[in-house]
């Protein structure tokens, strides 16, 4: 059994790494040194070891839960008590291992990718803080503590997306990510308040208990859960708050790899899983999760079909896969949703690292300028294909297992099931479209900043983490072949390894999804490798759809130009501003100037002529007499 102090250490170690890098290494160590990277790598290695230990302890612990004492943070008698407390159960432990492992791989890779960047130290400082915040979010035992880390995760993505802040596009993307997710956070905060008002607690375990026993029920539970889900929609880039994620690739590619796999976007899915007993007991909230998830899955996949930027394709695929996870949570439960998160973290990190590797060699992310990299970058090619097969859901790679379970559980909602099946086809198509455009055919010259006309494989420090992730992209799914993953996170039913491995072929549904995925790959092969069908002609044939997808359903325009710029900034806020300067301040100045003009007018009456004063006095006296006579 792991002592609880070590669990605190899991997220404090990256924090110490941040402090060391920010306050000692960055000011005092010379730019060429790579010690900052090693600091974080060392911290994360220990965190990973501790996380594995935690997982092992949780597996054997009663109820799969470790007790951790709480610390008082703010106490207001007769008011509120805020704790710093941890909740360590199977969900926590699995997430800890995923985050520390994926982050570690990415940090090793970054030693190669970020070499020579003038912001090298800053990069590792933010990466430390980012990992720390995500780990903190995972272990937090109450909603306030969690919200603290939740916001810090958002801050770190802001800092890392805007890492190259001198690029206006990067600064814009960073701002967009922060503000769009903050719209969701608004809902999260309101959800927290609703739950607190009705239960008097922020403690997650207590809230679970109250929801399960039915004390917390009805519209309170539904609105609380939906508020929390709004936070998840923002962070996990679900429709309609997904617009920030495709732009978020402005940061360095390893940052995208981390954001898209283990941190930031997975925080939303984790949040729903963490609060699952609340959703489970509110059919309306649970349906909302499933519907948003299912719609997002197909919606994002459709945009991925036409993107030409390799990172953008991956970004849409992330949104789509997150939609799957939400669908899995909404229809099947924690184990199913989180299992996909678990597998997805490895292959999606790998895909991004592959994209980074390709960019390292060609100087571009535009797939139209790539091609033919198969022979030049064999390792990148091999690992990228493995990850693509995995995400497409090909047996027996990891993606198959978790996607299969989601699709099966989605059967409960026929419409969502159909959407999910179409998405299977689309996913396979756009992933292999990317594979063939990038690696197939002949090299098309790379970007304007390409180093030479003949790209080379990336250095070992980048290739090794990719291979490690590729191994997991193949095998991680086998954990639940025996049903043990599901048992750990909730519902039982375990069986033998080989029985589980070949079990899918005894059923119809896996066949169906395998055939759809195969067709998707085949279609990509026909269009982009063999060019039997012209992509241009297809684009013209389906012109309305094509431009709808290409312009991202015009949602960015709707949000930014119509709602924010026109309706709010120019319209409503502009009229407020005019009201403020002319209306409110106008009255203030009007009172002042009326005093001046009034004074000027009255001054004319001070003529200094006694006759006039006498006249006024007479009128006054008469008026008084009349008043007394009539009213007195």
């Amino acid at each position, binding site marked *: 059994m792991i002592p609880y102090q070590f669990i605190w250490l899991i997220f404090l170690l990256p924090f110490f790494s941040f402090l060391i890098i920010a306050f000692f290494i960055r000011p005092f160590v010379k730019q060429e040194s790579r010690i900052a990277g090693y600091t974080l790598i060392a911290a994360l290695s220990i965190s990973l070891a501790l996380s594995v230990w935690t997982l092992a302890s949780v597996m054997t612990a009663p109820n799969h839960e470790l007790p951790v004492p709480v610390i008082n943070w703010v106490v207001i008698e007769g008011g509120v008590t805020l704790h710093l407390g941890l909740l360590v159960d199977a969900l926590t432990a699995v997430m800890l291992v995923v985050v520390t492992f994926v982050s570690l791989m990415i940090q090793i890779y970054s030693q190669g990718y970020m070499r020579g960047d003038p912001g090298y130290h800053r990069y590792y400082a933010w990466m430390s803080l980012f990992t720390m915040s995500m780990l903190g979010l995972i272990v937090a035992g109450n909603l306030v503590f969690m*919200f603290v880390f939740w916001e810090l995760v958002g801050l770190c993505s802001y800092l890392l997306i805007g890492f190259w802040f001198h690029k206006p596009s990067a600064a814009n993307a960073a701002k967009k990510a922060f503000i769009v997710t903050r719209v969701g956070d608004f809902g999260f905060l309101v959800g927290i308040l609703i739950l607190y008002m009705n239960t008097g607690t922020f403690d997650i375990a207590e809230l679970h208990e109250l929801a399960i026993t039915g004390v917390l029920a009805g519209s309170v539970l539904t609105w609380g859960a939906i508020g929390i889900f709004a936070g998840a929609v923002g962070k996990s880039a679900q429709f309609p708050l997904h617009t920030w994620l495709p732009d978020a690739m402005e940061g360095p590619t390893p940052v995208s790899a981390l954001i898209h796999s283990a941190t930031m976007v997975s925080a939303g899915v984790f949040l729903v899983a963490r609060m699952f007993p609340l959703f489970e007991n509110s059919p309306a909230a649970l349906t909302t999760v499933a519907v948003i998830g299912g719609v997002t899955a197909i919606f994002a996949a459709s945009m991925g079909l036409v993107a030409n930027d390799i990172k953008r394709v991956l970004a849409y695929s992330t949104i789509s896969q997150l939609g799957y996870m939400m669908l899995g949570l909404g229809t099947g439960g924690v184990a199913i949703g989180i299992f996909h998160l678990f597998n997805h973290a490895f292959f999606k990190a790998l895909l991004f690292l592959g994209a980074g590797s390709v960019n390292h060699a060609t100087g571009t992310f535009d797939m139209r300028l790539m091609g033919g990299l198969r022979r030049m970058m064999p390792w990148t090619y091999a690992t990228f294909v493995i990850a693509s097969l995995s995400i497409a859901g090909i047996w027996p790679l990891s993606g198959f297992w978790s996607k299969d379970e989601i699709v099966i559980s989605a059967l409960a909602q026929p419409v969502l099931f159909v959407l999910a099946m179409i998405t299977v086809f689309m996913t396979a198509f756009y992933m292999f479209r990317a594979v063939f455009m990038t690696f197939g055919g002949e090299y098309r010259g790379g970007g304007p900043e390409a180093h030479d006309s003949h790209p080379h494989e990336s250095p070992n420090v980048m290739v090794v983490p990719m291979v490690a992730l590729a191994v997991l992209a193949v095998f991680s799914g086998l954990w639940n072949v025996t049903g043990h993953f599901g048992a750990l996170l909730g519902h039982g039913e375990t069986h033998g390894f080989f029985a589980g491995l070949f079990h899918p072929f005894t059923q119809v549904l896996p066949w169906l999804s395998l055939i759809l995925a195969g067709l998707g790959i085949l279609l990509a092969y026909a269009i982009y490798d063999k060019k039997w069908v012209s992509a241009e002609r297809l684009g013209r044939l389906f012109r309305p759809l094509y431009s709808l997808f290409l312009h991202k359903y015009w949602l960015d325009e709707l949000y930014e130009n119509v709602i924010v710029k026109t309706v709010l900034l120019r319209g409503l806020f502009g009229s407020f501003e005019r009201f403020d300067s002319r209306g409110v301040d106008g009255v203030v100045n009007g009172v002042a100037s009326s005093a001046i003009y009034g004074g000027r007018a009255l001054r004319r009456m001070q003529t200094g002529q006694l006759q006039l004063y006498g006249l006024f006095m007479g009128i006054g006296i008469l008026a008084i007499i009349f008043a007394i006579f009539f009213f007195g």
Partner: protein
Amino acid sequence: MDFSYLSILLFLPVAGAIIVAFFCGDRARLIRWLAAVFTFLPFALSVALFAVFDRSQAAAGLIQFEEKLLWIAPLNANYHLGVDGLSLPMVVLTTFLGFLSVLISWKINLRLREYFGWLLLLETSILGVFLSLDLLLFFIMWEIEIIPMYFLITIWGAGRKEYSAMKYVIYTLLGSAFMLAGILSLYFTTGSLNMVEIASGGLGMVQTIMPAAAIFFLLLIGFAIKLPVFPFHTWLPDAHTDAPTAVSVMLAGALIKMGGYGMIRLCVSLFPGVAKQYAVILIILAVIGVLYGAAVTLRQTDFKRMIAYSSISHMGYVLLGVFALSQVSLVGAAMQMFSHGVITGLLFAMVGLVMHNTHERDLRNLGGLARQMPIIAVVFSVAGLASLGLPTTSGFAAEFLIFIGSFTSTIVPGIQIYTILSILGVVLTAGYILWMLQRVFYGPPLEKFNGTADADILERVYMFALIAVIMLVGIYPAILTDLFKLGISPIVGLLGG
């Protein structure tokens, strides 16, 4: 009363002002150093008092370090000072900002003697407001502040400084006139000027000469103008924008907090019943202040004016917290006053630096400064993030307490809706803060700003001091909440749950 700590604290700055103004000639170095010493000592003393303040629950509501001397016998007016859990942190805030504002003014060269004289007098008058327990003393201290402010803005200000200074003076005097009427009616109905006495037994003393609600509103208008509450806020952007940097820091950091403090100390604790009755109106004004203030902030193009408008929005949260009238919301409101003091103090100091170093204040002409002034960019970002309420900064601790306190308050039906509306302000705040950061610091570096200086040693000292406080309160809010709750709980007790 064993030793007059509070009197020393109160009169050190004004003693410094007299020495600086009349006995130093034109020796600039000496003047600066003396001003620094005479603001540092009160700061050190207030921190010492903060440390030895009795925090036990038994001390809730007790006035500590009390001093009382008969002043004007026929009026029964006393020179009466004292601090409780509510006022002590505000005193520390004032002395802290007072000291830093001297450092911020280090580069001022125009009419130095007068400048520091007025600045130090300003500090004493603000301290006087937080320390007074006698209504007459309170009012006099409240009024004295106008004189230094007028000269500081007209002489050392910029832009339409005469207009802004005059507007500030007249607007404040208007509020004071109402307040004076309120204080007088209070005096004539209760026969006492002692705040503690009136609060503890005074409600029974209020007779029929004037309805309690009328007195409540007379006092409230004065405080509402100072805080400021929509629609009495338009003096603030003008005064802030045209004042010299250090004065903006004092104005936004400490001075407008007198309004919130007065509301809690006089309006709520003397008239709990009336406060309850009219809370809904003030809460609606608070929500308008938060949202409307943030919306207008988003439209500003002047760097300094933007921060000024953001204050209106943030003070809306104070008003919400005060009139949600629950233990947590009132503690949150007090926290927000302190937190906004340091955060906005820092923001104004930074804006002043950027404007001083670049000679540019139009946001549309700034850009890319992160390369030319990296330290300022980092500090500004921290201040901005604190302003938008990021956890681990004091802004989050304060706003979150206000949200919890208001949401769970039972005083006003439907307060949850108002709270939710005001939480929307958090999104707008993120919008204008990030837009501003991007506009000023990000993007490609501009050639015209090449060679622009970054912060020097002295500037780094006060920046990091403010950041340290922001983070300390953010990470360990109990350092303040433990004190504020002692001041707040007896007031909540008067409200009857």
